[in-house]
């Protein structure tokens, strides 16, 4: 099973500053992951420019596998010098992970990575060395499922300074807080990030004395979704198409009226459309919007919808949403479809290429409208960093 890095991050701006001096860049592809956290000298515009440039250069160079020396050299040549302090300076921590497993961490003056495995803090054997005149810390290590990694900027370490913590929250205490959150059952990175930044904000009494950034990462098996849409052009392939769906792990989705009938027939299960005649409805049943495509149930399937319209509406929703939180809370077919797709890291479309004889436009185009929407979905989902495959039958 493939592993991926699930992540979430949040920055708190120094009170009164509009720009954050911390920069985060994360590039997440199915097989490679790179996260950079850079903190620019000072705060405001100058800090922001320094850290943005550093993060941008780091993410590109590390992603393409350039040596650390080249990166530090490039930084020195690129960063604008501060006219007051005669310094071009931004800290950085760069973490790259390939195939959800092999990690490479490079840090320069930044708080060390917090790695938690089986709820114990792992001490990474960091190597200190000079790269193009700068003292960096570096380590390569192997990640396991359920490993939790946290990168913070020093704004976190200083939280609560002079108040609850005389010397600030501090790395050790933060690592402990992470462990506490984990044992309290906080299982996903989004909630972990939320809990950490809330605590940080509280320690600062709602007025952060410095930019404070956290990136939470977790190694987990990649989640799959498989969508079967459209009956095969050749009827003899019906069984095969359905078996492609039933044999996969993860969520199973059927999109299309005749496709749903085909699946029900092959599986010898009932296709039940989710609709109760008005007279039999319970008074508390939520009202369905008129004209929104219906949903059905087939035993063993996670979602069964109609085709073209639902696919088109789901694409529209996805274009407007980057994460599940951006989706409306509706329970209609297209929102449910969009949600299942966003929850997955790998999405497989099994597309039947039968042409619908009732759709004149399909016949003229020589391709179904379905395919047009699928292509759009594939594009949007790939841009969101998901692994997407289409198989035509």
């Amino acid at each position, binding site marked *: 099973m493939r592993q991926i890095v699930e992540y979430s991050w949040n920055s708190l701006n120094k009170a009164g500053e509009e720009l954050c001096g911390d920069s985060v860049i994360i590039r997440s592809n199915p097989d490679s992951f790179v996260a950079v956290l850079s903190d620019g000298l000072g705060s405001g515009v100058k800090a922001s420019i320094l850290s943005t440039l550093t993060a941008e250069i780091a993410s590109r160079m590390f992603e393409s596998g350039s040596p650390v020396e080249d990166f530090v050299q490039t930084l020195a040549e690129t960063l604008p010098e501060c006219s007051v302090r005669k310094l071009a300076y931004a800290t950085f921590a760069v973490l790259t992970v390939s195939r959800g497993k092999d990690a490479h961490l490079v840090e320069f003056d930044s708080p060390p990575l917090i790695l938690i495995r089986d709820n114990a803090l792992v001490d990474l054997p960091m190597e200190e060395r000079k790269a193009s005149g700068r003292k960096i810390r570096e380590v390569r290590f192997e990640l396991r499922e359920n490993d939790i990694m946290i990168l913070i900027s020093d704004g976190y370490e200083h939280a609560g300074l002079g108040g609850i913590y005389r010397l600030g929250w501090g790395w050790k205490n933060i690592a402990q807080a992470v462990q506490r959150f984990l044992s309290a059952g906080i299982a996903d990175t989004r909630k972990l990030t939320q809990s950490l930044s809330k605590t940080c904000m509280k320690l600062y009494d709602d007025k952060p004395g410095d930019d404070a950034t956290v990136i939470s990462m977790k190694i987990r098996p990649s989640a799959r979704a498989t969508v079967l849409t459209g009956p095969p052009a050749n009827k003899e392939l019906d069984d095969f198409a359905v078996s492609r769906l039933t044999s996969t792990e993860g969520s199973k989705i059927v999109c299309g009226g005749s496709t*749903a009938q085909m699946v029900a027939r092959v599986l010898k299960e009932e296709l*039940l459309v989710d609709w109760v005649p008005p007279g*039999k409805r319970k008074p508390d049943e939520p009202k369905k919007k*008129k*004209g929104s495509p*219906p949903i059905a149930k087939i035993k063993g399937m996670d979602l069964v919808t109609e085709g073209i319209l639902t696919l088109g509406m789901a694409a529209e929703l996805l274009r407007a949403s980057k994460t599940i939180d951006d989706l409306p809370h509706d329970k209609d077919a297209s929102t449910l479809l969009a949600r299942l797709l966003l929850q997955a890291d790998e999405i497989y479309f099994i597309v039947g290429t039968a042409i619908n004889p009732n759709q004149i436009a399909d016949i003229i185009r020589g391709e179904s409208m379905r395919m047009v929407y699928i292509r759009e979905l594939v594009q949007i989902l790939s841009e969101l960093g998901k692994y997407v495959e289409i198989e035509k039958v």
Partner: protein
Amino acid sequence: MNREREGSKDMLIITICVGSSCSIRGSDELAAEIQHLIKKEQLDGLVDIVGAFCMDTCSKGVSVRVGERAFEGIRPENASEFFYKEILPYANSTLLSK
């Protein structure tokens, strides 16, 4: 042939399309009318209504199947005419024959 639900053998199933086009043109209203008529003619328990996906016959009305016979373009305001012409006689003949 499109069978969403077979029901018990001695039941007549009215399948009403609840796809987008039909639902805008009054699937719910038509269903409510037919249900009312089923009651009125004391066919409760003998005739049942279920929903279906788009039947690929989207038109200016609702697509409906009575048993295996398909109709399209049925408007809610014509429910009663449709019921007495296509449902009641059919229900009587098929149910009585069993």
